[in-house]
């Protein structure tokens, strides 16, 4: 059956689709294929394992204002509604049509289980969302940051360890004039999951959107972020981290555009892969004609930890305006042997030296995570992964070492150390 956008009825339980995998002409030779025929079948009630994981997260100090699993959806905030596709109004339906024309994104939008609609009214809000599945779960989060507001949305995604599962998240963000929207995604799915992620936006004048993602779970992660600084003097900032081991694959595309004058877009990605893991970092920055004084920045770095692991860093830019500033850079290398030797020459054993270097590698991006709780969770998960622990839960006792640009003083170096 061929895919048709927006036709949920075409995807009843057990139905299958088959379409081309990479819609971007630029990157059509560089992608990891999702299963050619994806199904969306899910149980109708919360699984015992999902409940257990939720309990364990709470014990680890991770709590949610909004929680979604297959059979349960709870919002403890009056300005956050959880809807099913049939309950959406025209504006919300229209919002879901935006974004990148991509197989994975369209699949998840056409198979949405729950839609979280955030309409914060206060000048500053922070909403913590959690989603866990032991089978299949697709959700969308529609966030509106009203004029002049500051809104932070944190998202934690998990799947049950050994179970084959699929988790999809589509973020649709609307930041009105002078608003600031900060989104954080922590992907800590099990190793047998398919992870679909996408983000799209609409920006008002002088607004700021910051999308911060840590991809650590799943057998394959397919992320498509299509963000345009559409309002005059608006800013879009994307920070991506990925850590892969075993056979994990990450296919991450940041498509950023300067959609108006005096705008700034930045895409920063860092990945570490080990064993047989592979990662494609794709970042395309477009500056169309008619957006003077636009600034665009693409930065990609990768460390490959084994001869069988690999990272493709593929930055690209299309610039049709002359009065702009645009920079891109990318580099992939093995872990630096001189850095290891230097640390060992200070009495630090090899394993710990490696850990310090990887933590510092991620630390540069983590320091840009303005939400300290999400920074703590992300660093804790990465720490576990560096130790070789593939866990659906972060380790609250994890050691962590990095310079936090946001907090001054010596003690800032230890604040993530239990």
């Amino acid at each position, binding site marked *: 059956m061929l895919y048709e956008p927006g036709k949920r009825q075409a995807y009843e339980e057990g139905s299958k689709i088959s379409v081309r995998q990479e819609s971007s002409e630029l990157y059509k030779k560089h992608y990891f294929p999702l299963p050619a025929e994806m199904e969306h079948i899910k149980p109708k009630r919360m699984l015992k394992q999902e409940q257990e994981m939720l309990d364990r997260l709470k014990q680890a100090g991770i709590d949610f204002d909004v929680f979604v699993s297959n059979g349960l959806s709870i919002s403890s905030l009056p300005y956050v509604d959880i809807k099913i596709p049939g309950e959406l109004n025209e504006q919300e339906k229209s919002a879901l049509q935006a974004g990148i024309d991509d197989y994975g994104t369209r699949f998840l939008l056409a198979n949405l289980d729950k839609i979280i609609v955030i309409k914060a009214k206060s000048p500053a809000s922070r909403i913590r969302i959690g989603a866990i599945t032991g089978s299949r779960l697709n959700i969308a989060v529609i966030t509106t940051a009203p004029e002049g507001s500051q809104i932070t949305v944190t998202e934690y995604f998990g799947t049950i360890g050994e179970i084959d599962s699929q988790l999809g998240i589509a973020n649709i963000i609307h930041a009105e004039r002078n608003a600031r929207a900060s989104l954080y995604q922590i992907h800590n799915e099990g190793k047998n999951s398919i992870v679909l992620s996408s983000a799209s936006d609409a920006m008002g004048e002088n607004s700021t959107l910051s999308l911060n993602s840590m991809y650590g779970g799943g057998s394959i992660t397919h992320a498509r972020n299509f963000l345009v600084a559409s309002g005059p003097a608006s800013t879009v900032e994307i920070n991506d981290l990925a850590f892969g081991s075993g056979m994990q694959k990450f296919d991450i595309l940041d498509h950023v555009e300067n959609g108006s004058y005096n705008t700034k877009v930045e895409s920063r990605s860092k990945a570490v892969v080990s064993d047989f893991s592979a990662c494609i970092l794709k970042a395309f920055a477009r500056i169309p004609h008619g957006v003077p004084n636009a600034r665009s920045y693409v930065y990609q770095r990768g460390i490959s930890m084994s001869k069988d692991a690999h990272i493709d860093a593929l930055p690209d830019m299309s610039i049709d305006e002359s009065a702009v500033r645009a920079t891109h850079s990318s580099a992939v290398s093995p872990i*630096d*042997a*001189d*850095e290891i*030797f*230097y*640390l*060992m*020459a*200070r*009495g*630090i*054993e*090899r394993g*710990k030296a490696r850990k*310090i*270097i990887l*933590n*510092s*590698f*991620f*630390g*540069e991006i983590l*320091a840009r995570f303005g939400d300290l709780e999400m920074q703590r969770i992300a660093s804790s998960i990465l720490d576990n992964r560096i130790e070789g622990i593939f866990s659906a839960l972060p380790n609250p006792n994890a050691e962590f*070492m*990095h*310079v936090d640009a946001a907090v*001054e*003083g*010596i003690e800032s*170096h*230890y604040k993530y150390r239990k």
Partner: protein
Amino acid sequence: MMVEIKDLHASVNGKEIIKGLNLSVRSGEIHAIMGPNGSGKTTLANAIMGHPKITIESGQILIDGKDANGMKTDERVKLGIFMQFQNPVEIDGVGLIQFLRTSKESITGSKINFKEFMDDIKESMKKLEMSDDFIKRSLNVGFSGGEKKKSEILQLMVLKPSIAILDEPDSGLDVDALKVVANNIQEIAKQNNMGVIIITHYSRILSYIRPDSVHVMIDGRIVANGDYELVKKIEKNGYESLQEKSK
């Protein structure tokens, strides 16, 4: 504590760099190794530290009587060896202080009292005329050549090894900074009965730190031994006459 090098032959990427070298350094002794560029001085330092790119073809390095062959770099350090790097690496995101704490705890094998540790660091930084900003900065990131040298000597002062190998501690330093660094090396060496191997091209630093022994290294061998008088000779005549001798 003693480092003994016996008829050492070492190569890098199949090329022999150290060609039969003998040297003994005890705690409390100050040795200077001088020599022209490419004579193998840094390779010798790296060989003592167990750099993975250096292959020991024959001979021995004994650290306190223990054969260092097969010993990992961190194990050598735990026996009391320290190396000041000529070009220390920059590691973004690793705070200098946290790094030093990890290093100290790794070497001693025990948790340290953080307040005492910080007091020690602050005192050493003051002596080295380092700004307080260094406390907040990442390891060597954005440091000038002179700042890197001071950062290395700060590590020496905090870690207090039994024998320190200083690879060109004078390069990149202006006259005033050189005096500060040299005085601190001398002081820490005296206080801790530390053995010091200073690798340098120039005599200037040795006018502040008077060596007990001076060795001239050319083409992977020590071709002359002496005291401070040898430094004066080199200052006057250069290495040329000694190079002739080595052939």
